[in-house]
């Protein structure tokens, strides 16, 4: 199939991997703020600049990676219908936005909110590029009579990302930001649904990859898959209320969030029910890297969903809300679930022939298991710190905030050093994938161009 969109889909993935490397470095640097609170605090790279830089880098790793995954999946099945021009403009807009955002951060020019802490202007190229993505998707999707479930999930992720991204900026209107409680409610409504949107893009990718690896074409059309998809969509739309239990918002918002969050027990029960099946297929495909990452993501779904359900019960939420347990959950999901699916996709979609995984098997194995072990320690240390803080905020001791924080220093030490281990192990995986990308797409292309030039010169001289 000849279509110039394929190199662009790979460039999205490569750019995402670069953002991952940047996010890991910035995360480890920012985490040192917990050990040495006065570190560079009055400089341009103090904690208040490092934190948003880390969050944005990791967010871009997930969003750009998800974009690369959806494009790669579409290319594999319906490649000739995609517009390479639209995708190129989309990529260019992303690059402009990223450079603009980091320039703002480095000049301490903030003005945004959690997740999008930059001055609102660079949000414009991101929104336009997303619109182009939707147009490109529709170009393909409208020609397909019966959609597999992953196409529904991708469509949902695309539409709801744009909706929540715009909703995130309602504070620009005075009516919204002048009503404190409503403003906070909308902020966390948008943030909750935004995470649900990129989860739809990534879980859709995981189902696509499973289909590709196992050759099972039926699952993506089964009633059970669609039932799970709609349950996920229902949660994306209505479960965000669990973020604002403590906020004095209308009671129905909290009750809807509580009730809908409890439907996640169904997902949880399903994971346990299909566990045996997952283990047997893992044994079958263990040698295969993408599959191994997908299995790891499934284990992290189990751990994080269990935690999420407990945290969604308001009486427990009171102990975890505003503590590092919330951070542990965010890290567990973004690294354990989102990043594992993205790495599986990168191993599948990026050409791994030029810098073969076989040759690096030892390092990849160490990095894979190192990542899982480091993440477990990282997750545990944050939970331990969070539980201590939770007990403090519920009044178990009468100490000040700074005394309580000093008491958590051992957990923070563990958190920072397991973070360093994560940076190394995930970094190795990202570097191997990027070397592959460079070897296959840049060096090889250059060799082909050189060869062509040489041949044409030879012809001229002949």
């Amino acid at each position, binding site marked *: 199939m000849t279509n110039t969109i394929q190199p662009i889909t790979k460039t999205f993935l490569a750019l995402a991997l670069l953002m991952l490397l940047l996010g890991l470095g910035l995360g480890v640097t920012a985490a040192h*703020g917990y050990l040495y*609170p006065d570190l560079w605090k009055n400089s341009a790279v103090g904690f208040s600049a490092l*934190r948003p830089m880390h969050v944005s880098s990791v967010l871009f790793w997930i969003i750009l990676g998800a974009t690369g995954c959806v494009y790669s999946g579409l290319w594999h099945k319906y490649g000739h219908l995609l517009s390479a021009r639209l995708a190129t403009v989309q990529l260019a807009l992303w690059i402009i936005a990223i450079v603009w955002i980091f320039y703002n951060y480095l000049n301490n020019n903030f003005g945004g909110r959690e997740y999008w802490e930059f001055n609102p202007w660079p949000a414009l190229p991101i929104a336009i590029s997303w619109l182009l993505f939707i147009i490109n998707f529709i170009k393909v999707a409208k020609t397909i009579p019966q959609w597999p479930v992953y196409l*529904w999930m991708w469509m949902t992720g695309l539409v709801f990302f744009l909706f929540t991204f715009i909703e995130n900026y309602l504070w620009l209107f005075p009516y919204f930001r002048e009503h404190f409680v*409503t403003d906070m409610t909308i902020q966390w409504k948008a943030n909750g649904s935004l995470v649900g949107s990129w989860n739809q893009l990534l879980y859709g990718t995981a189902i696509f990859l499973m289909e590709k690896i196992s050759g099972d074409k039926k699952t993506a059309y089964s009633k059970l898959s669609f039932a799970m998809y709609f349950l996920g969509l229902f949660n994306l739309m209505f479960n965000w209320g669990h973020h604002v239990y*403590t906020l*004095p918002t209308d009671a129905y918002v909290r009750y809807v969030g509580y009730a809908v969050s409890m439907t996640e027990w169904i997902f949880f029960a399903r994971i346990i029910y299909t566990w045996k099946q997952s283990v047997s297929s893992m044994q079958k495909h263990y040698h295969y890297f993408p599959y191994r990452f997908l299995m790891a993501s499934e284990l992290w779904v189990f751990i994080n969903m269990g935690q999420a359900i407990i945290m969604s019960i308001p009486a427990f939420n009171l102990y975890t809300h*505003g503590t590092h347990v919330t951070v542990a959950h965010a890290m567990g999901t973004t690294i354990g679930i989102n990043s594992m699916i993205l790495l599986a996709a990168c191993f599948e979609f990026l050409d791994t022939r030029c810098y073969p995984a076989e040759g690096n098997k030892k390092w990849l194995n160490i990095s894979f298991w190192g990542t899982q072990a480091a993440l477990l320690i990282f997750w545990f240390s944050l939970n331990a710190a969070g539980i201590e803080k939770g007990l403090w905020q519920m009044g178990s001791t009468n100490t000040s905030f700074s005394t309580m924080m000093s008491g958590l220093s051992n957990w923070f030490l563990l958190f920072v050093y397991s973070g360093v281990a994560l940076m190394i192990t995930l970094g190795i995986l990202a570097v191997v994938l990027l070397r592959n990308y460079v070897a296959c797409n840049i060096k090889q292309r250059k060799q082909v161009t050189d060869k062509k030039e040489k041949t044409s010169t030879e012809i001229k001289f002949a």
Partner: protein
Amino acid sequence: MKIHPRHIFVVLCVLFLAYSFSIYTAPLRNTTELQQAASPAGEGRLVWQKYNCQSCHQLYGLGGYLGPDLTNLMSSPGKDSTYIHALLKSGNKQMPVFDLTDEELTRLLAFLRAADATGNGRPASYKTLWNGMIEQQHD
């Protein structure tokens, strides 16, 4: 009639839009919040964002983790505007120095006062109901 995924999707989307609309219009139904709305507080929210206060601080437990929650800062004993002004000018162990103009400081204080007036952000004072839900208790 056979139910197509499209039908379920459309029904859910309509419900979602109706729910979103009810959230957006909450201040129009809730007279207390409507009365609390204030322009300086809204402008103060922009100062909070400009200096990225949420990177370290929380409001109702939402935000960063390096500094304390500031929901009820303004009504805390000894934490008046003079104290906040001094803290911003000189910083402390982990808090950097912030060079706010007088106008920005006034707006930020108005925002913190408005946040404080909305309720009690101390988790220890919440009441747990029989069904597991929590409820704010006013001091």
